[in-house]
């Protein structure tokens, strides 16, 4: 590989942490979705890098990445639909205002 796999892994860790921060700290719901997509991508990067660094013949890493992309798509779709529905009802998509389950 061009660079040591640890560097790629570090990059992916950084991307993941960024995404996590956004998921935790963002107010906007769609912002949170964006952050989640970022996290998923970071995971994907890890999968691919490690399968390149020491893979098996069946292509498990890349297949996994593909599946993750598929699931991410489904998740994004449903999530956005949810955001739309919530926005319609509550005129807001600020995550910290949607606390109906507050105990």
């Amino acid at each position, binding site marked *: *590989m*061009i*660079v*040591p796999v*640890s*560097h790629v892994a*570090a*990059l992916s*860790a*950084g*991307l993941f*942490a*960024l995404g*996590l*921060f*956004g998921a*935790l*700290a*963002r*107010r*906007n*719901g*769609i912002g949170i*979705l*964006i*952050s989640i*997509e*970022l996290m998923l*991508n970071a995971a*994907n990067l890890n999968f*691919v*890098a490690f399968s*390149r*660094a*020491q*893979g*098996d013949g069946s*292509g*498990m890493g*890349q*297949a996994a*990445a*593909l*599946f993750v*992309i598929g699931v991410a*798509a*489904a*998740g*994004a779709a*449903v999530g*956005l*639909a949810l*955001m*739309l*529905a919530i*926005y319609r009802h509550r005129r807001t*998509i*600020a*995550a*910290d205002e949607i606390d109906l389950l507050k105990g």
Partner: protein
Amino acid sequence: MSDPVGPLEWAAKAAFYCVAALTLLGGWFAVSQRNLFRAALGLALALFGVAVLYLFLQAEFLAVAQLLVYVGAILMLIIFGVMLTAGIADPAVPRWNRQAVGAALACGALAVGLVAAVLRAPWLAGAGKEFTLPLEALGRGLLGRYLLPFELLSLLLLGALIGALHIARKEKE
């Protein structure tokens, strides 16, 4: 394609690190921009970057798939969502929620920890050698060993489709 050698090697390395930096930058925008459209664009940058990185890692199919699906479809979807929900940018509304500081600390700690752990870990100390996957193997795998997840994924997508439709549709008057 395989790794370049010789003088192209360090150029390639440099390019890699640049793309990596751009990806991080995109990620930072995605996370921090108040204006959601800009955040979406940031995400786009990050996604593009990741795709290029896939190329660097000789996963060409995945790069293309990434571009097609993520950038082409999911990003569009996100932008649709952004457009459809108002409040793209409102200076009065705070960007961060009240646990932003805590989250920053936690994620910062996570990042530091992970990066440190990863960089220090003795990778490939033992067996395992670099390996470039032929596309044909991926294809065989998807329809062979990983057929079940593959099919389930299609079911999932179907479900998500129907579900999203149902959730998002306007109520009957």
